[in-house]
């Protein structure tokens, strides 16, 4: 039995939806709302790994009793454990390249989640946090997950901090752009989990940070996004949206580097 607990198809939640649709394996979809803190409820899967998951808020895959979290490693699990389209090249060099992108994209994802949460989620909280939100956040463990929500509730990111995040993100995006000049796909000649990983994290950026992702600065990223949008698996994955605006669905993600 294969079950996926997920939210709107964006960011970490979009990755396994694309991979499972690429594999064309049947699965049970459990849609939950992390902005209503349903992931802390008794019906949601629980484990040490899920509680300490460094993506903080993200999907959970349950496969024959095994609970998988951490969105990049979930992609690797889907690639290795399930039948269907190969999502990893056989060549060890390409596999290394995909994993190296997985590490770099984890940092990019942290910055994207932060910018998206500040843009779309923080205003909801700013309009007046209901007592039940304050109460739900106060109960979140571990501390790192609670503080990410707390920072949003308190409006804890000033323009200087956000400018630093955008600078860092701009530098990282130029590295993706450079890689896509050399190859249509990130990890080498063939489509792989690295492309799913990247698309899920950056497809919203032309709208979220148009000053960083646009036809002049990142033409190859825009072409990459077009190639990905053209895939039927990606279209089916985006079809899991209930809001019709998945590009505005953000919750706190991985913690940006504490080293600056």
């Amino acid at each position, binding site marked *: 039995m294969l079950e996926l607990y997920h939210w709107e198809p964006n960011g970490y939640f979009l990755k396994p939806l694309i991979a499972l649709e690429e594999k064309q394996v049947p699965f049970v979809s459990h849609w939950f709302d992390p902005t209503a803190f349903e992931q802390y409820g008794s019906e949601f899967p629980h484990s*040490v*790994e899920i509680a*300490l998951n*460094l993506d903080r808020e993200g999907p959970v895959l349950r*496969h024959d009793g*095994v609970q*998988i*979290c*951490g969105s990049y*490693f*979930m992609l*690797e*699990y889907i690639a*290795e*454990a399930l039948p269907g389209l190969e999502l990893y090249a056989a060549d*060890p*060099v390409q*596999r*290394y390249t995909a*994993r*190296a992108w*997985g*590490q*770099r994209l*984890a940092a990019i994802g942290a910055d994207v989640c932060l910018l998206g949460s500040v843009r779309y989620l923080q205003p909801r909280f700013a309009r007046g946090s209901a007592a039940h939100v304050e109460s739900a956040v106060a109960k979140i463990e*571990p501390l790192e997950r609670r503080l990410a929500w707390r920072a949003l509730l308190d409006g804890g990111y000033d323009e200087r901090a956000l400018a630093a995040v955008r*600078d*860092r993100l701009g*530098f990282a995006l130029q590295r993706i752009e450079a890689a896509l000049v050399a190859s249509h796909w990130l990890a080498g000649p063939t489509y792989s989990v690295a492309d799913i990983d990247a698309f899920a994290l950056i497809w919203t950026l032309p709208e979220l940070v148009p000053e960083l992702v646009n036809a002049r600065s990142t033409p190859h990223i825009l072409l990459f996004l077009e190639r990905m949008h053209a895939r039927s698996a990606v279209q089916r994955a985006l079809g899991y949206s209930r809001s019709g605006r998945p590009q505005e669905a953000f919750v706190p993600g*991985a913690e940006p*580097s*504490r*080293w*600056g």
Partner: protein
Amino acid sequence: MLKLYHWEPNANSGKPMLALAEKGVEYESHYLDLLGFDQHRPEYLAVNPDGTIPALVHEDRVFTESTPMMEYIDEAFAGPALRPKDPADRWRMRWWMRFFDAYFAPSLSMIGWSVFVGPSARQKDPKELAAAIERIPLPSRRVAWRKALFNEFSPDELEESRRRVQFAIGVLEAHLAGSPWMVGESYSLGDINGFNLAYALPLSQPDKCNDQTTPHIMEWLRRIYERPATRQTWAKGRTRLAARIDILERA
């Protein structure tokens, strides 16, 4: 020809060193002095333009991310398998490696840089230090080095790192109480990764990691220390950093 550019058998440099030793793979060793900024000199930037250590060069391909590098080593070379066969166990191994790399290590290294790397590097001429920082290619690494060299870690940042180290040691001890290795019954890259991070904990965090408080971590570290590949790898160390491993000698 296989070449590895590395510093001491410690943290990121130690990961591929120990993985290669466990596989029994010979390599040409290029030692770089991290505190002498060898990694930012032109001859090394020609190998790895990011100026980070380690870098593995195999058949003209360059590999620079230490944890994926270990998986490459396991896939590309013969020798004992260092990853579980079962996909769920592989996922567990990767989960732990990310916990080490992205949670435990940044906090432990912030403490380490504040008490060791920064003070050691500050022995040099300040102008030379400033020039060395300017040569660092990655902006994020420039920020990190500046913080370490000029002691810019705030008391709050260091206190938070100490809290996280304490928390992570508790998580690791609880896990090893139920499992001899990071994943099940076999030694894996998860253990190699964790050992490189944790081998000196009994010395650097003696109140948090010791035979009374964390007996399972201590036994796990000693079992890894006693492996021939570990002895062989740490013998390549040149400084007191690597010599800290002696704390794991059984009484």
